[in-house]
């Protein structure tokens, strides 16, 4: 039967390769040549990369697969930046790179040669909080706190985008986007909060932006 033939063949194949494998085992292991490294899908490739993190120059040698998020957390032990989904769907990993907020889980560390990264640890210190950090504390803008570093980094850079005239989905006049609660909510939609602390997150951001209850024009 074809099925039995197939089984037989593969068993014989297995036995032969087993013999080869044990024969090879006695030979000292050789370092793979570069050509092997490129074709052998199990051999990791490493590379040096240098960038600044919170003002401090860093030089790392990383597996090319290392995301910026993993480099920050695992290599540099900056665990303030969180991993939620690892697929760009939650915003927990948001950091500011060269002035722009990005999802650090969808970017490779080696793609940031010469770059400048700001994480939650670089925005402020426990003694000298960044105004956005202070506002989150003041407005109770979190519950478990897992999304918070991403929310804060996102909010800081987001206000810069609004100021620079970047439009959003709810902008009426593309030529001049204006502050409003609707604008802030839309622009922060890339940061999911599983605890749904949204009302207080928005209150904190409005406070820093100088709108909302303080200035009396809450939307």
């Amino acid at each position, binding site marked *: 039967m074809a099925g039995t033939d197939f089984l037989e063949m593969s068993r014989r194949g297995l036995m032969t390769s087993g013999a080869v494998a044990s024969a090879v085992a006695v030979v000292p292991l050789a370092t793979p040549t570069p050509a092997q490294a490129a074709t052998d899908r199990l051999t990791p490739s490493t590379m040096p990369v240098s960038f600044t993190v919170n003002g401090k120059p860093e030089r790392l040698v990383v597996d090319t697969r290392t995301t910026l998020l993993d480099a920050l957390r695992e290599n540099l032990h900056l665990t303030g930046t969180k991993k939620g989904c690892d697929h760009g769907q939650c915003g927990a990993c948001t950091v500011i790179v060269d002035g722009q907020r990005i999802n650090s889980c969808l970017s490779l560390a*080696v793609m940031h040669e010469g770059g400048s990264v700001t994480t939650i640890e670089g925005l402020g210190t426990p003694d000298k909080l960044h105004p956005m950090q202070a506002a989150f504390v003041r407005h109770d803008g979190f519950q478990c706190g897992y999304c918070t570093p991403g929310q804060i980094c996102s909010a800081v850079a987001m206000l810069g985008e609004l100021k620079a005239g970047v439009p959003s989905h709810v902008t009426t006049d593309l030529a001049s986007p204006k502050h409003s609660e609707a604008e802030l909510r839309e622009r922060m939609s*890339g940061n999911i909060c599983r605890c749904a602390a949204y009302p207080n997150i928005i209150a904190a951001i409005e406070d820093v932006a100088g709108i909302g209850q303080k200035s009396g024009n809450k939307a």
Partner: protein
Amino acid sequence: MKPFTYERAKSPADAVVALARNPGAKLIAGGTNLLDHMKLEIVTPQHLIDVNGTGLDTIENTPDGGLRIGAMVRNTALAAHPRVKKDYAVLSRAIVAGASGQLRNKATTAGNLMQRTRCPYFYDTNMPCNKRDPGSGCSAQGGFSRNHAAVGGGANCICFFPSDMSNAMNVLDATVEVMKPDGTMRTIPIADFHLLPGDELPVKEFALAPGEMITAVTLPKPPGGKHFYRKVRNRASYAFALVSVAAVIQPDGTGNITLGGVGTKPWRSAAGDAAVPKGAKAVAAALFANPTATDQNQYKLKLAERTIAAVLAAAKG
């Protein structure tokens, strides 16, 4: 993720040479789509060529009054460009209707055009999917197909094309500029860039040949009229479309309409455009002459007609 080697290209010519040298390689731009797939081992390139340093990050006026957008221009920068906001508002609106602020800061013009399906079976490597594994079958047919395409589907694949930006590029009659492996250039009209799944395997998605690289997208001179991008989705933000309408409507009631979410590629036809003055019903009838809907996504045809009606009403207001 499977191991890979990595290099940085300094120019488009550099990148196409590197592509030719490494048949298992992929270009990486923003990385927001490719890395997602590599983590799940949906794609497993042996080598990555980073094109972020190729200098294709400028937006320039063309002699005929149009705009040339470099392949590496970020989605945020494109949506915020003064001329795009003023003359090609449908493009600004389409971009900001997609993804999130963080993703748009990384996503590039070329990467967005080349983004792949969000079909859940494409993402689940345990399931048959012709797009991921040619010949394995299409799990969506007979499976959950509520989000899939209601027009343009074929026996091999029925997924909708997810890019919002591409719908606007389509309604604006953009042209994709491509560098060939030998360093010479060619152009592809946007209408021919995204492909129907067709009857052959593997399922082809883009008109780009192996080894080619996108260098820019050019827009013809501004079309005038009122610009709309209306997107209907399951949540108000940070979600893909069920149906979207990219439209440029002129004061005399004529116009151009491209639909997203409903087709296997940005969905537009000459007959659909010609029907614009006659209203939404006529446009939908023209665009949906040969539907391929399943029971579960039949609703998209009606939803699209109503969304067109909303846009045409807004154009009159």
